[in-house]
């Protein structure tokens, strides 16, 4: 069924400007879209962003490198662990630091769990916006377990601040792996349940297939990364293409779509959840074998353990020096990218050797994707705007920074 805007001659002049947002239930945070409508058809869509702009990059210029970690939680708050990992990795690249194997493993584990959590939100909310509430409920039951896991690991459900420069804040507690095993057992069933509700559901297919179609060239040109790019048929995943954290030692596949529409994005995200589960399984197995420190043994970068700080003079001095004066940073600039749930999450750091970064820039994955909204929704029904917006997985926290 081809749905494009009728020509002007066919309609009376009933153009209308409609404000979608800034606080609309389907706008995923505070973002506003000014829609120019003719009947139910969209003539143009002008996104207005910045409602959640906190000036994160400016704040970073007066914080030490370690102090910036909590601000990364608030970028993509649906998968804050991955932001923590991405940022820590950028600073470690600047320092030319190698983190211990167990820390790498736990970083992979929490990243993949966060990816599953992010996709649950994206797919679930996309379905809710279109009118399918049940899939959302089935998945959110699992998300609750995920957040319990995050809480066990980091002590916090949403704002985890789990990574430190050079490793992690702490090792996983003993109860973590048993609960993870439970999750690994129940999650595939929940994905199956969700797929039974959606994948061949005629209403879901009708609302998503062919909606928001984009070619590979267009997607690349618009700066698409992550599931939205892969659903357009480009097999680009930084975990495979530019492996970091030892992703090349894991066995997993990259799902790709064909036409980049909302349905393909849904299928890609669903399959990515299963692939992430595979990685998590391998991680859980290896974690039982790999032991060792979870942070580098270099007190010029990482704080010494508290027992030592209270009992040894050197450690006390190291602690004091690190907190008051920060790390010895080299002069230079790096761009470090990780594959976050939405796509390439990049951190561009410029150091002039001082305690705080001279410039810190975040490249949020949904920023370029959202900038193509007008191209995607022009000529379509207003209801399609909601479907497309949901599939883009725009997170205002990282969009506006």
């Amino acid at each position, binding site marked *: 069924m081809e749905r494009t805007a009728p020509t002007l001659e066919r309609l009376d002049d009933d153009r209308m400007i409609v404000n979608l947002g800034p606080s609309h239930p389907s706008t995923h945070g505070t973002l506003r879209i000014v829609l120019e409508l003719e009947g139910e058809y969209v003539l143009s869509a002008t996104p207005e962003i*910045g409602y959640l*702009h906190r000036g994160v*990059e400016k704040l970073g210029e007066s914080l030490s490198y370690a102090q910036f970690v909590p601000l990364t939680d608030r970028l993509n708050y649906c998968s804050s662990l991955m932001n923590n990992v991405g940022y820590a990795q950028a600073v470690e690249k600047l320092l030319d630091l190698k983190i211990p194997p167990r820390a790498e493993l736990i970083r992979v584990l929490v990243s993949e769990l966060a990816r599953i959590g992010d996709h649950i939100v994206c797919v679930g909310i996309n379905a809710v916006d279109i009118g399918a509430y049940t899939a959302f409920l089935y998945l959110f039951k699992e998300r609750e377990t995920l957040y319990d896991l995050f809480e066990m690991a980091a002590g916090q459900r949403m704002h985890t601040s789990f990574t430190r420069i050079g490793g992690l804040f702490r090792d996983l507690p003993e109860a973590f792996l048993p609960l993870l095993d439970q999750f690994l057992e129940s999650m595939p069933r929940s994905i199956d349940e969700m797929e039974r509700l959606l994948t061949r559901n005629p209403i879901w297919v009708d609302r998503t297939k062919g909606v928001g179609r984009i070619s590979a060239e267009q997607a*690349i040109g*618009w*700066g698409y990364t992550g599931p939205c790019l892969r659903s357009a048929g480009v097999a680009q995943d930084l975990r495979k293409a530019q492996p970091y954290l030892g992703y090349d030692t894991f066995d997993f596949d990259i799902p790709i779509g064909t036409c980049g529409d909302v349905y393909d994005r849904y299928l890609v995200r669903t399959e990515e959840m299963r692939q992430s589960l595979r990685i998590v399984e391998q991680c859980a197995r290896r974690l039982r074998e790999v032991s060792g420190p979870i942070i580098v043994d270099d007190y010029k970068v990482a704080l010494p353990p508290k027992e030592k700080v209270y009992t040894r003079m050197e450690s006390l001095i190291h602690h004091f020096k690190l907190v008051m004066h920060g790390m010895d940073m080299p002069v230079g600039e790096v761009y470090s990218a990780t594959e976050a749930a939405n796509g390439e999450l*990049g951190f*561009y750091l410029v150091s002039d050797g001082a305690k705080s970064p001279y410039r810190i820039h975040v*490249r949020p994955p949904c920023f370029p994707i959202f900038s193509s909204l007008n191209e995607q929704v022009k000529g379509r029904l207003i209801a399609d705007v909601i479907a497309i917006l949901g599939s883009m997985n725009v997170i205002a926290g990282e969009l506006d*920074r």
Partner: protein
Amino acid sequence: MIIERLESAMPGVVLDHHSFRGDCTVVVTTANLVQLGDVLFGEGFQQLLDVTAVDWYERDPRFDVVYHFLNLVSQERLRLKVQVRDGEAVPSLTGRFPSADWSEREVFDLFGIPFTGHPNLERLLLWKDFPGHPLRKDFPLDGGDAFCNGDTDTSYAGRACTLNP
């Protein structure tokens, strides 16, 4: 290497280049930026991931405009830099790379660097009447007079924040 190919395609365009931690940076002239974008596109750097800027307020020229390109085939990354003075415009890359659209608007918004040939160069994150450009180093950390309506003076250096200027 991409630097030699750039140099042979457009002699004199590369002013400087260096590599740090595996990141390749090329500093180029502003004048032929659009043409250079075409050359890079032809060389396979078809994705412009990001545009941003750095304010070196004591240096002349004051700003670095920084572009991050990705070659999806060879997975090479390239950082392109142009140096501009305050008020000097940079040619927009929106013609070849649609993803430059919002990124350039963001740089314009937060640094006040204009882009010539941009189809819709307006503030992106901040509102229209916002005075000044917050990511400049001389913008006051407390936000200055930004929240006091009616004052659109953009020179902020050395001025205290007062509610009644």
